[in-house]
């Protein structure tokens, strides 16, 4: 089936795309919403403009849709982007990286239902630890580009998701109830390499900004 990937460039949407491809589907386009609202309810925001570089190494066309990121208006913008994907790339379904967010998942389901296309959520309800281990097993190289919860701080920016990361995040899960896969928005990630990429992306420049337990890393990749 021809699928459009709701794509943020973070681990969830890239891994969902990987699973869809592995199941024999055709990844026809990536759909990225660029939200002006950094606190968007629907869309992952840090480093999102870097999805262009990922689309290039995946050799998949990218649909970029700007949105002001106001609560329900951004859903109209998402619908517009999915309609473009249906018209331009003849997609028959979308694939998302939703894990637990009923808010995000049910809104995407509504849009797909209205547009009469399939909606795939291959990470739905997935156990956090099992998920991170699978990412490592499948050779995903992932960088932390945002932290937004106590006790995470600027020292976590730029870290790779590796065995050490999994061990530490599991401890923080026990103490602070941080979701192991960051599904509560505790941290955001950016994929530098995976089996869908023709070559690994290199970080050319970066700027860290933030305070306390809320930090972002804006990266430039090539």
């Amino acid at each position, binding site marked *: *089936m021809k699928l459009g990937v709701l794509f943020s460039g973070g681990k969830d949407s890239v891994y969902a795309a990987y*699973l*869809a491809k592995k*199941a*024999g*589907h055709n990844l026809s386009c990536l759909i990225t919403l660029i939200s002006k609202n950094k606190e968007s309810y629907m869309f992952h925001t840090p480093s999102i403009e870097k999805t262009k570089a990922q689309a290039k190494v995946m050799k998949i066309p990218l649909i970029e849709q700007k949105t002001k990121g106001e609560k329900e208006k951004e859903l109209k913008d998402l619908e517009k982007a999915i309609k473009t994907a249906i018209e331009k790339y003849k997609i028959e379904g979308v*694939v998302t990286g939703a894990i637990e967010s*009923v808010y995000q998942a*049910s*809104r995407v*389901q*509504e849009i*797909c*239902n209205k547009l*009469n*296309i*399939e*909606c*795939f*959520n*291959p*990470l*739905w*309800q*997935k*156990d956090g630890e099992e998920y991170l281990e699978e990412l490592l097993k499948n050779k995903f190289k992932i960088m932390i580009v945002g932290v937004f919860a106590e006790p995470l701080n600027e020292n976590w920016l730029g870290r790779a998701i590796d065995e050490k990361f999994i061990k530490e995040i599991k401890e923080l899960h026990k103490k602070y109830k941080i979701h192991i896969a960051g599904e509560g928005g505790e941290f955001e990630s950016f994929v530098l390499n995976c089996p869908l990429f023709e070559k690994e992306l290199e970080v050319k420049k970066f700027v860290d900004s933030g305070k306390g337990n809320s930090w972002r890393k804006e990266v430039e990749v090539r």
Partner: protein
Amino acid sequence: MILIISTCSETLHELEFVKPIEDIIGKEFKTVNYKDLTQKHIDSAEKIIICGTSLKDNTFLKELGKFSWIKEYSKPLLGICAGMQIIGLVFGGKIKKKKEIGLIVSNFDKTFLGLDGVKQVYALHNNFIDFSKIPEFEVFAKSLSCDQAVKHRAKKIYGVLFHPEVRNKEFIKKFCLL
């Protein structure tokens, strides 16, 4: 052994509608797609769960013959969403259109495998069955528009229209203990 029957026509959907149920059960289960279901699978199971599928996937409706065994089945059986619709159709119910997507409120008039009173449940369906028209079944919970939880009056055959694997995981564990 618990037999999990997938109603998905796309393998990728099984990660969304079947794997979460396997994770809740944890061990001693076997999963089979309804297209590959045999009498041997049914006979070797202590209990059976028939899972749901995506909003757009109604392929199972064209192959109800694969489920005719349900009418004579005497061990515990749970149908989730598509699974509940299959149970209703096998017992002579009629399918009706009503969309519910997302968290909805369901009112359990009587305790239903640990669920009682007003509960939030996750809905994902375009169709439902009106079980009040099927004399063999009792309705335990309704949402504003649909029957949400039903049980066969004489057998341990349960149906839920909502997806308990999302917000009501304990319910599935309770079924497994029957």
